[in-house]
Every structure is written in C-alpha cells, then in structure tokens.
C-alpha cells in the first residue's frame, strides 16, 4: 500500500500542529484499508454487502478530513448517495437469496448462488440484476449516479483519493464481476446490453466532462468514471472481454493511484487545485511536473504504459465478438477523453511558471517511484506469472 508511505509527509503537512487529528486520520485510514481487503475475502454475498457498506462508512470521515465546506459537501454527497445505492442493492441481494432458498440451496455463498441461478425465474434474476447493478454501480460512479465521485475524489486528502479512486472503486467493481456469472443465465442479451449501455454512457459523459473541468484532481476523478465505464463495457462483451477486464482492473488501480500522487504533489507545490492558475509546472517542481505529465499519459491510455495494453485487449475483444458499434463508440470517447486530459495537463506543465520553485518531500517521491515501477514494467512486458494469474482470474470470473 503505497498510500501509507505517501500519507507520511502529506498529512504531516496538512495537520501540522494537530497531532490528535493526525492520529484519527491514521486510525480511519487503516480501518478503511482493512475493510477494503475484507470485501474480496468474504464468501457470502450478503456479508460482502455489509463489508461494502463498511467501506463507505469508514471512509466518510477521510473525505471530510479538511472540514472545509466543499470537503463536507463532498463527504455528505458521498455518504448519502452511496449508502442509498447500497440499500437499493440489498433489495437485489434479498431477491437473489430468495431465489436461492426456493431453488433449494442452503449455503449462501457465491458458488451456491451461481449453481442455483439457472433454476431461478428469469424475471426475478432481471430485477435483482438491475437493482444490484444500480446499487453497487452507484459506488463505482456509473452515470447518472456519478455525481458524488468527482467531489469525493477531489476533496479528500490525496492518499485517500488514491485509495478511493484506485482501490475502493475497483473493489466494488470486483463485487459486480463476482455477481456477473449469476446473471449470465438470463435468456437473451439482457444483462450484457445493460452493462454495455451503462458502461458506454459512463465513458461518454465522463469523456466530455473531462474537457471542461477546472480542478486537476477532479480531472483524474472523472477519468475514474471513464475507466469504470470501460470496465463495465468490457464485462458486457462476454468471455472475450474478460481478460481485458481483469487486466484493466489491475492497471487502472496502479495508474490512478500514481496519478493522484502526482496531483497531490502538484497541490503541495502550488497550493491550488485550479488548472488555470498552474502554469509551467516543469520549472516549479520538476518531479511533480514530470510525474503529472507521465501519469496523465498513463491514465489517458498512451502507448508506453500498461493501461494502453489493457485497453487494447478490450478493443480486441470487441472486434472478436463483432460489436462494431461498441468498439466505435468506445474509441471515439477514449479519443475525446485523451484530448481532454492532455489539453489540461499540457497547459499546466508547460508555459511560464506561475509559482516559485519548490521541492517534493521524500516519502512522496518514494511512493510515486514504487507506484511507477509496475506501471511502466507492465506497459512493455507482461511477466508470465502475472499473465498466468490474470488468466486464472479470468477463468474464476466465469465460474
């Protein structure tokens, strides 16, 4: 968890003179990380739901850490919208458990659910699917329930942003992926279509919003919405998209964390989140400038980085199942998003310096460096063990 290393200096900086506050922060942060780790460990969907709810509850105060009106607003939106989503999802889970009980299953585990799914009425599966997709979808920020995400992910302290955007969102998406085999039994392309439509809408809306953001942390937050959309679309592509999905999940987690670290160091160097007031970053703080530029390229999906490869494999999947429309729209939206991200980042990194030069604290550098290694390595070379792991994960997804 590179976030912890990063926190060291960053929170020192924020909470100078408030040791009490600092302690609370670390307690919350560790609890939150623990709850995130618990989610994939649980075998029972209902308990997973409880864990998901816990991740929200535990991270609310991390978002509102600054206690400024915007931070509180973000935390409030975050709490209310995601808890609502979770509550809607619980009804879907009840429906699934009901189906499980009437299909004769007794152990309420994922595998029992998958086994019982073909015996459940299609209408029930459909309703449960929509409820769970919308419910958990709220938590991964699919459009139109995405409104909280840019707020929460931009107002929280940077390490928390990295966790929220890089890890939390992917964890919840993992839950949706886990449920996915249950719904494959639904006749027709019902679930597939839902995922593709929801995913594409999210990518599209996020891509166009990326162009008009004013806050560089929000820039990356919207990029998260976009990536989640890509992931859902890939999931909807069927078995061909699975490898791409798992790969993208991994690379997104890596790239987004690094991107937020870069954004955080820019924030420390300049003291503003406003894109328009940061110019010539490469002279203000070379470390922050270079990492920002590179991480911008990385999350936008430029060639040398891992995200490019994972997106490529999703395109390949779209071609292989002949979803030309999906491919076309996805390509178009990604181009728009790339343009949006690079437009802003170019403006920030180059030009006349707007702030006096400053240096980046050591632990920030360390966290970014550690974050960078897998991102670059995976971009040029996928090690066989990891490849094997991804293939295994892909198979597990379909079981």
């Amino acid at each position: 968890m590179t976030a912890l290393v990063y926190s060291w200096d960053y929170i020192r900086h924020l909470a100078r003179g408030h040791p009490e506050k600092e302690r609370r922060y670390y307690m919350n942060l560790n609890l939150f990380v623990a709850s995130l780790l618990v989610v994939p460990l649980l075998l029972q969907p209902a308990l997973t739901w409880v864990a998901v709810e816990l991740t929200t509850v535990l991270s609310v105060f991390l978002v509102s850490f600054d206690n400024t009106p915007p931070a509180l607003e973000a935390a409030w939106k975050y709490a209310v919208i995601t808890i609502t989503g979770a509550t809607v999802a619980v009804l879907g889970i009840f429906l699934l458990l009901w189906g499980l009980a009437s299909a004769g299953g007794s152990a309420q585990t994922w595998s029992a659910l998958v086994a019982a799914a073909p015996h459940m009425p299609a209408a029930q599966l459909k309703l449960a699917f929509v409820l769970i997709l919308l419910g958990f979808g709220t938590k991964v920020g699919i459009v139109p329930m995405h409104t909280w995400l840019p707020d929460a992910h931009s107002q929280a302290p940077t390490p928390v942003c990295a966790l929220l955007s890089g890890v939390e969102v992917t964890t919840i998406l993992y839950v949706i992926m886990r449920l996915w085999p249950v719904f494959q039994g639904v006749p027709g392309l019902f679930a597939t279509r839902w995922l593709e439509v929801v995913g594409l809408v999210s990518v599209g809306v996020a891509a166009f919003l990326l162009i008009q953001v004013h806050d560089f942390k929000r820039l990356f937050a919207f990029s998260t919405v976009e990536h989640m959309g890509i992931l859902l679309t890939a999931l909807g592509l069927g078995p061909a998209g699975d490898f791409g999905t798992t790969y993208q999940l991994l690379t997104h987690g890596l790239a987004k964390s690094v991107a937020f670290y870069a954004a955080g160091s820019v924030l420390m160097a300049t003291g503003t989140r406003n894109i328009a007031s940061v110019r010539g970053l490469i002279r203000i703080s070379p470390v922050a400038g270079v990492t920002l530029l590179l991480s911008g390229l990385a999350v936008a999906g430029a060639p040398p980085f891992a995200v490019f490869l994972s997106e490529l494999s999703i395109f390949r999947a779209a071609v292989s199942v002949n979803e030309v429309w999906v491919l076309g729209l996805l390509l178009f939206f990604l181009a728009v998003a790339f343009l949006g991200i690079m437009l802003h980042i170019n403006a920030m990194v180059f030009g006349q310096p707007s702030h006096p030069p400053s240096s980046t604290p050591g632990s920030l550098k360390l966290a970014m460096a550690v974050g960078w290694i897998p991102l670059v390595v995976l971009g040029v070379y996928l090690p066989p063990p990891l490849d094997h792991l991804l293939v295994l994960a892909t198979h597990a997804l379909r079981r």
Partner: protein
Amino acid sequence: MTGGFAANLLVDLDALVGGLFILSAFFLMAPRQAQGFLKHFVRQSFLLALSALLLGWLHGSVELLLVALITLLAKTLIIPGLLTRTLERELRSRREVELAVSVPASLLVAIVITVLAFVFVAPLLHGVGPTVDINLPIGFAVTLIGVYTLAVRREAVPQMLAVMAIDNGAFFAGIAIASSSAIVELAAGLEGVVVVLVVAILARTIAQHVGSTAVGDLTSLKEGTPS
C-alpha cells in the same frame, strides 16, 4: 408453523400492516419540518418491526423475531435518540425543509413509482404465498418512493431519514422473501445504527462549519465554476 385459523389471522394482520406501511411512505413525503419527518419515520419503523414480528410468529422463526426486536430497538429508539442527541438544534428548528419539487407534484410522481414497482414485481408473484404477495411489492414500492423522497429533500436530517426509510422498504420486502437469511438482516440492522451515527456526526460538522444543514445550498462543487 402455526395452525390454520391463527395462521390466517396472522397473514391478514400482516396485510393490514402492509397497507399502513405504504401509507406511511406517502405521509413521509408530506411534512415540511424535520421533526415531523422523524415522527413519521419512527411510525414506519414500528410497522416494519410489527410485520417482522407477525411473520416470525407465522413461520416460527426465531431470527425474524430477533429482527423485529432489533428493528424496534435500533430504529424506533436508538436512531431517534442518536439524532436528538447529535442534532438537537437542527431537529427542533421550525424551519421549513426546502423541496426541489412541490409536495403535490412529488406525490403524483409517487403514484407513478408505486404503479411501476407493482408492474416490475408482478411477474415474480406466481404462487409465492400471501405474505410475499403483500410484502414484496409494497416493500419495493416503498424503497423506490424512498429514493425519490431522498432526491427531492434538500436538508440533512430529512435526507438521512429518507435513507433509513429506503432501508425500511428493502427490509419489508426482505423479511418476507429471505426469511432464512435473517442473520444478514440482523447485521444490516445493527449497521444502520452505525451509518446513522456517522452521518449524523457529519451533519453536525456541517452545521458547525457551514451554519445550517440545508445541504441543498451546498453547490460549490460542480463543473464550470473555478473552485
């Protein structure tokens, strides 16, 4: 399982509670002050507990009886207590809650939502027993109405209570359809208290730093305005 006549009576009483439950969802849309909202919420939670009690008795399920007990404790005692402790001033304020949509208009939307809920659930209701017939559609409708109520309220306390009302709706359906997984409901019921505690503290912080809990006025975060 309880025998013939008594079982019938329990089913009938559950239907009665169901009717009152959906009624309470509509009443929950009408009040203009936080206090009235809380009052209706407590009533609704009480009905939920009552239904869990009836179903628990009917199926001879100890878990459901426990759910009833926990709902009663958590939602009619602890949550209102917590709210009163943390948000005393906001709760007692006579200020009218700001609404995004007027009450009559939103009630008309509620009709549409209810009808949609029944349409969605209708295919599931073939030979599933009388209590599911009542609890599932009504619970689903109340859940959706709750989401809508939440969306049009622009104050912290009513929003918080609307979230809990959504919870009530989901559970009202849950106690009938997933009675075997009552352990989940127990955990979730307890978690509701934690959620309210967290959100209430957040609301108090908002009140301290912003001066009011009219969260609808917090609109600094959006695209197009430099922050």
